[in-house]
């Protein structure tokens, strides 16, 4: 097993952990943190993939940089939205109304 494989598998494992968190944790901030863990996993995988040739491939780095920018802004927006939701409803979770059960 090479270092690349180790990083790659860790990335996939992080993605799965994050995904598990998003699906099971009701608290919105925990969901957002889990999302960030999942995206860190994907980014790690991509960085690892950059080492598969003789010399490092610059493209995945560019992609990961773009991805991090998107991820940061999305998280910032999501935290802001969660704060608005808290102000409007006093809730920190997404309550499920009966009619949403579909």
């Amino acid at each position: 097993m090479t270092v690349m494989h180790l990083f790659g598998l860790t990335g996939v494992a992080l993605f799965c952990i994050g995904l598990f968190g998003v699906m099971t944790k009701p608290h919105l901030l925990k969901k957002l943190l889990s999302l960030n863990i999942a995206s860190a996993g994907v980014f790690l995988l991509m960085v690892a993939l950059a080492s598969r040739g003789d010399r490092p491939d610059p493209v995945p780095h560019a992609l990961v940089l773009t991805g991090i920018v998107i991820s940061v802004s999305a998280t910032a927006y999501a935290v802001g939205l969660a704060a608005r939701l808290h102000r409007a409803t006093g809730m920190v979770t997404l309550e499920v109304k009966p009619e949403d059960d579909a």
Partner: protein
Amino acid sequence: MWTGQQPEVWQVAGPMIAAAMTFALGSRGRKTLVGVVIALMGWSTLGTIVKLIGEGPYLHVIGGWVAPLGITWRIDGLSAVMLVLTTLIGAGISVYSLGYFGTSSREQHNETYFWPLWLFLWGSLNAVFLSGDIFNWYVTLELSGLAAVALITLSNKPDALTGGMRYLIIALVASLFYLLGVALLYGEYGILDLGGLSKAIEPTHLTMVAMSVMTIGLIAKAALFPLHFWLPPAHSNAPSPVSAVLSALVVKSGFYILLRLVIEVWPAEMTHALAQGLGILGGAAILWGSFLAIKQQRLKRLIAYSTVAQLGYVFLMFPLMTIGWDTDTNWTSRAFAGGIYQVVAHALAKASLFLAAGVLIHARGSDDLEGLRGLGEKLPLTVTAMALAGISLMGIPPGAGFFAKWMLLTTAIYSQHWSWAAIMLIGGLMAVGYLFRIYRRLLTHVDHGTFHQPSRIMEFAALGLAGLSLLFGLSSMPLLYVLRIGMPEQLTNYFWGMM
């Protein structure tokens, strides 16, 4: 001038520049700006199509930076049809919104944010339809997703915030799934752009994994059953023009990428199983979405569930396309045309329906289905718009939806796949069932309840889009003529013969 030769640039640049400008403009300037944007987009779309017909499919390399670090756009028949769709619906929604916002001071506040976000969403949707590489799709999907969430939550009402939040989380998770697949593909092949990928791709296990995770991400974005649960709360609680664009265009962007991958990238050996799976989910979406639409008590929720059902028809195109893939029949191209036409028909009709719903809700001040009683007498134009849009959704001639269902049904019947045909016919009847729940209340004769006269411009926008859904049904050739340009021969052989 260089922009004259590259009209496609304005598809993205136009709305985005305008989005930035709205902050600087007052309400009068905003009206002018909307007019300019609509004219610009109309000109740009026409120019793109003329160029496409003249030169055939072509690439646009942004800023001269070539792939993989630069961004390349691809213009062919399929992307051109989607551009036509965004232009028509974008114009309708923009005109409508001039009337929708600004009637009270609180909405004035919303309007300040609505315009930049909406124009930004318009631009990023066009970017999705123009992009030609798999990573760029990730970026554009995120752009449109974030703009869409911000638009949903404009009203700051608890329901809208909850619906928007749920949509945001689903969208982000879906994007990560998609990005994971992109990473795997790049790791294996070292290519991001579609043309190169389609040549290099091989039916390996890794490709299979990439295909699976990307598909999961994309069907969540496209709200295919069973990943549709986020759609009704998000779409029904947004402001009406936003609901219209979400149901008409935003969910289609996920579908568009999925379709591109199926017809261009995935190895033929693997698409068969994928297509069957998508078809089964599509069939389930038709039945389940229609069933829930029939049960709803609120107008916009009913329409939102109808979106779930109508998207099911779109996904039926996948199994029907693969049936004839390796034969010398024209079934593949029939199913392709039917599916794309269903996208067009549903987008126009559903946008019109949501816009009309916005008029009714404005008039009555409530979203309750029972509150619609008697409105038919007061708002005949809006009711006409709803009726015309409904004709298309129900699949009754001469609506555009009829053409779509005709193509899909004939494919199913010619190839003797009776179960698909039966589901489509039952789905059509169920559409009648839920739509007439609206109509019968509108036609009820009572005279009570509050009534505010809505702006006429809103009614005309809804009617215009509904009229277009009939027009495209009466004359299907122009769109098919554009659609076939630059598409694989297998997808268009049926149409070459008749033009």
